């Protein structure tokens, strides 16, 4: 068996070479994706900018990641959310769900807008992007809890969170809540749009979870001095 197959055995090379996630030499510079940066003439931060450009002409540049585009519609927060929703590397599906969610939110709001009387039309927010960003901001906790071991016992100590951590927690809660606590037969985009709309008006399970975290932190205020950093 092995003797007949040995002629077919070639040294295996993958079809796609992953360049980005192998470790780049720190000598390589980040690519500039935005179109505006290339249309600027000689007139901006003259010394620094010009130095930067000189450097880019000499040094090698890393390959751009496949998730970033130079499109005017690209949004870093949205890309992060799509990456967090993605499972088994299926970015197509995650993006599809996200676009369907945004479309669903916009559809509901525009329907309400067209049926509303003249006086109430300005109060209805139709932009799904502002609704989504506002909902995420509403879900972000202000303080977090950390388990700190002191004198043999473990205390839940309130600590400040960095901006990145806060936005990460908001997105994580939103996704897990939609995956676990909703009816099995509804589509993900339906569940997500309902949750985002309720977070926009400070209702819903994610806001409740954030408030419970805040209450726990408030009740454990006495242990705040256990933090040493």
């Amino acid at each position, binding site marked *: 068996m092995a003797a007949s197959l040995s002629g077919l055995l070639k040294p295996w090379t993958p079809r796609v070479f992953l360049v980005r996630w192998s470790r780049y030499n720190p000598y390589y510079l980040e690519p500039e994706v935005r179109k505006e940066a290339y249309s600027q003439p000689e007139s901006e931060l003259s010394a620094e900018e010009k130095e930067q450009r000189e450097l880019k002409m000499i040094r090698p540049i890393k390959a751009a990641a496949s998730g970033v585009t130079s499109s005017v*519609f690209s949004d870093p927060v949205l890309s992060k959310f799509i990456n967090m929703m993605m499972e088994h590397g299926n970015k197509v599906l995650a993006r599809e769900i*996200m*676009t369907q969610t945004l479309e669903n939110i916009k559809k509901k709001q525009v329907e309400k807008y067209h049926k509303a009387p003249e006086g109430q039309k300005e109060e209805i927010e*139709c932009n799904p992007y502002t609704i989504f960003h506002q909902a995420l901001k509403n879900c972000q906790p202000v303080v977090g809890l950390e388990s700190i071991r002191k004198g043999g016992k473990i205390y839940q100590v309130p600590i400040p969170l960095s901006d990145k951590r806060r936005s990460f927690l908001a997105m994580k809660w939103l996704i897990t809540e939609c995956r676990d606590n909703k009816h099995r037969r509804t589509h993900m985009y339906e569940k997500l749009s309902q949750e985002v709309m309720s977070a926009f008006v400070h209702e819903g399970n994610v806001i409740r979870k954030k408030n419970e975290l805040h209450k726990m932190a408030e009740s454990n205020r006495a242990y705040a001095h256990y933090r040493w950093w």
Partner: protein
Amino acid sequence: SQSSEKHLGQFYTLPSAHFRPLFPHGLPYRYQQQVKTFNEACFMVRPPALEVISYLKKADYSKPALRYLFYGVKGSGKTMSLCHAVHFCYTQGWVVLHIPDAHLWVKNCKELLPSSYNSARFDQPLQATTWLRNFRTTNEHLLSQIKTKRRYVWTKRESTDEGRPLGELVNQGISRVKSSSDVVGALMKDLRLQSSQPGADFRLVVAVDGVNALWGRSTIKKENKSVDLEELTLIHNLKKLMKNDWTGGAIITTLSQTGSLYTPKSAYLPQELLGETGFDSMDPFIPVSVPNYSEKEFESAYLYYLDRKWLQHPQSRTEDGKKELSFLSSKNPSMLDRICGFL
């Protein structure tokens, strides 16, 4: 009156009283959702539909019925042009025989009964009853005025006499599910014969979407044997309608690759989709090509979405955003609709 060359690229709003009866079926799904969201139904006035409407206005109805065929790439607006033409016929008071998608009749059939009239053929009661119901909603006002010309016997106890209004025939088909396909066949035959007569006070428009299903293959299986298209009553009767041996009306059809069986995705021309037999049977027909949006039409669609508050992204209102939209959708109407959906 409503549509002329001056209005090319502009949007024609359908009066809401016409919308519910005319289109219980036949519009693309995404368009129906759009109508629900915006609370109004708007057609863009485009050259293919205008051409067909002008031919309909000028045609001689004592000659055999003319066959119009809309063809184009996927998503270029063939079904919408068909519906625009059908709406014109409706406003003129014609009888509208609109089959929303002939492909639905050749696949996924839940119930297949042997036909009572001809034992070699098969009946499809479910599809026939839903179609009859929709036909009734569309042509309510005309059905009471047209009378049957022959006597139809359904079973030993039930029959429809000569001279009864067509509405009774349709109700008979909806209530007696078993004989509904035969009712459909009788209806088509009657309407065809009556509109051919010189004294007829109505004209008939036959609108079929996805006409290439009539000459393709089917995936319906009866006891593990694939059913031939000739053995289905609905398809058989529809093919008889497609022949231009009757006068006093028009046949408007669309090709469709999306629902078709065993055809490659890249095929969109009549020759490829209809096949040999189909092309020969449709032979003297008027092909109307439906291209993607031109610059002016794209501009018009963009402004319509802006006006209806559908394009919400702040960047989509800039010049750059518009250029990007035009590039991403390559001015294909359905792609533009999908992209603007989430922007």
